[in-house]
Each structure stands twice: as C-alpha cells, then as structure tokens.
C-alpha cells in the first residue's frame, strides 16, 4: 500500500514536471512531436530506475557509513553521467533498434535535472531500497505522461492561430500551466 502511494504520488500528484518543475528543458525542447516524446520518456524512465538503484546503494552503503554525505552532490552527478554513458554502450551492443530509438536522447538525459532531483529526493526522504526503486519508476512514468500529453497538444497547436509574439516557448509554458492546473485534480488521491 505504501509503495502504491509512493508511485501515485510521484507519477500524478507531485508530478516531476508539472509540480516540481524538474526536467523542463527536455519538456520544452522535445515535446513538439509525439513519437520523439514517447522515446524520450521511455529513455528517461529507464535511466531513472537505474539511477534510483545505484544512487540508493551509493548513498546508504558508501556515503553514510563513511561519513561522506558532504560528497553527495558531486558523487551523484558523476555517477549519473557515467551511468548514462554506460547504458548507452550496453544498449548499442544489445539491441540496435532500441539504440536507434533511444540513442540520441541519452546524452541529453545527463543534464536533465529530473534525474539528479530524483536521487536527491530519494536520499532526503530516507526511502528504503524498494521504495526508492518504485519512486524512480513513478517519477519516470509521470515524466513520460506529461511529455506525451504535451506533445499531443503541441501537434494540434501547430494548426492553431497563435499570436506571433506568443509562438514557441511562451504558448508552450501557458499550455503547461493549464496542464498543471488539470493535474491538481489528482491531489487527494493519497
């Protein structure tokens, strides 16, 4: 039950993009086509789950026992960067179609603050291992959901008559605002 609450909370109620503003760069950048939004969302979810596993192990088995918690930020960011590189290499070796689908999005994920945010939130809230993995999965699902909904809207938006100064980023942000309002309806589910 607790695990289910963590998942719902991370995916819907406290959606990383629409409530915590994490991962806005790819959200504005990649959300103009449905197909690339789906791939980006999947790649991010994948990296998030692995990050949740690795950052938990690093924090609770290395940093805390040896009193090195002050190295949290540099070590997390280095781990994430090498992790993304590693995942890219593995995918390239294992599955060419998957690599073609996700490959170009992986380098972008390193600078996605949602990933570092996930690692930091996880250690701040003192989740246990399983909770942290579920948290990563929920956050990834929420990120994908927000990205895909946004891409769907933006594909339609291309046909709309938006005033010239508001084309591009401004109207995307305004739509995101309305979306954030809609997501508020999920509050109270937990």
């Amino acid at each position, binding site marked *: 039950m607790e695990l289910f*609450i963590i998942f719902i*909370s991370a995916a819907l*109620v*406290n959606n990383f993009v629409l409530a915590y503003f994490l991962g806005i760069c790819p959200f504005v950048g990649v959300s103009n086509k449905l197909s690339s939004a789906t791939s980006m969302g999947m790649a991010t979810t994948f990296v998030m789950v692995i990050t949740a596993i690795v950052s938990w192990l690093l924090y609770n088995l290395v940093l805390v026992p040896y009193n090195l*918690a*002050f*190295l949290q930020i*540099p070590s997390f960011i280095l781990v994430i960067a090498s992790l993304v590189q590693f995942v890219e290499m593995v995918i390239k070796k294992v599955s060419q179609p998957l690599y073609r689908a996700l490959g170009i999005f992986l380098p972008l994920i390193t600078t996605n603050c949602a990933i570092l945010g996930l690692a930091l939130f996880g250690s701040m809230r003192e989740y246990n291992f399983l909770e942290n993995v579920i948290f990563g999965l929920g956050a990834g699902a929420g990120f994908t959901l927000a990205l895909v909904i946004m891409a769907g809207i933006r594909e339609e938006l291309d046909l709309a008559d938006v005033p010239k100064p508001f084309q591009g980023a401004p109207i995307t942000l305004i739509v995101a605002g309305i979306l954030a309002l809609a997501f*508020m309806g999920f*509050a*109270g589910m*937990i």
Partner: protein
Amino acid sequence: MNKVAQMIIVLTSIGIISGGLLAIVSGWADPLIAANQKAETEAAIFRVQPDGKKYQQVENSGFELYKVMNENNQTTGYALVYEGNGFSGKIRLIAGLSDDLNNISAIEILEQVETPGLGTKITEEPFTSQFKNLETNPKIDWVKGEKPDKSNEIQTITGATISSKAVVAILNDGISRLKKLRDNGGLK
C-alpha cells in the same frame, strides 16, 4: 600516453582538491547545522508544552517522543512528533500531550506540502488553536460547516476538509500508538 597521463592527473587533482575543500567546509558547517536542528526541535517542544522547562527523548519508543518536565523535574507531559499522508503529500506535526495522555496542550505543523492558500491553513490560527485542551478520548473527531459541541471535536477548514481530516487522523494514529506503549509500560 602524455595526453592520457595529463587527463588522469588533472581529473584526480581536481577530485582531491574538491574533496578536501568540502571536508573542511562541512567540518565547519555540520555542527552548526546540527545545532540549528536541535534548536528548532527544542523551540517546537516548548511551544506545544508551554509549562515545560526541560525535556528528554524517550528511547526505544519506535517514534520521536519527548518527555517534558518543569523546573522541579515534575513531568508536565509529552511531545510527540508524528507524520502521515495529507492531501498532496506528507504532513509532519508535533503535539503536546498531558501526562495522562487525555488532553492535547497544543499542536504545531512542522512540514507539509498542501495546496498554498487552502490546505496550508492547517498551519495557521484559528485551526491550530482548536486543538488546545482538546480531549483525546475516545478519539479526536471532526465536524464540517458547524461549530463543534463536544470537547473532543474540531471544525474542519472550508476548502481544506481533506487536509483538516488528515491532521486529525495523524493525531489519532500517533496518540493511540502512544497509549498502547503506555499500557505496555514503555513510558516508565
């Protein structure tokens, strides 16, 4: 070869310097941070137990619990820190309880992520002051849209019913665990 050596040397020295620097800064900051946290808890305990002068953490209780005493070392009551789910996330609160656990002296919300302007009213007057001298037996109850007429009832906030109910539920949960602990002799 030369390139590789340079890469390794530069990266390693940056790592060592940054690690050393952080160790120094955190050596300076950690005691201050711990002192801040301690002062914060202390202030909160004495706010919910205004007659208290000293406090002592109750060990092995399974949750954060403080025994509060006056200047003559007589127990005035307890301060309980407990958390649970609210409308959009965790609510963490501290409650002052009388020695016999039958009355609440005061409560304070320590952490919450409720809706700004609506749910966040649980942290403010007049909601919090309703808990002063509230009876905890058989349990705390709530009424909606009318003034409470029993001594164990509070009125929920308009527009923030779920948040208000969550505070009551967290208190009931924590207090019932505390009473169980007392019945098993854990408060001696």
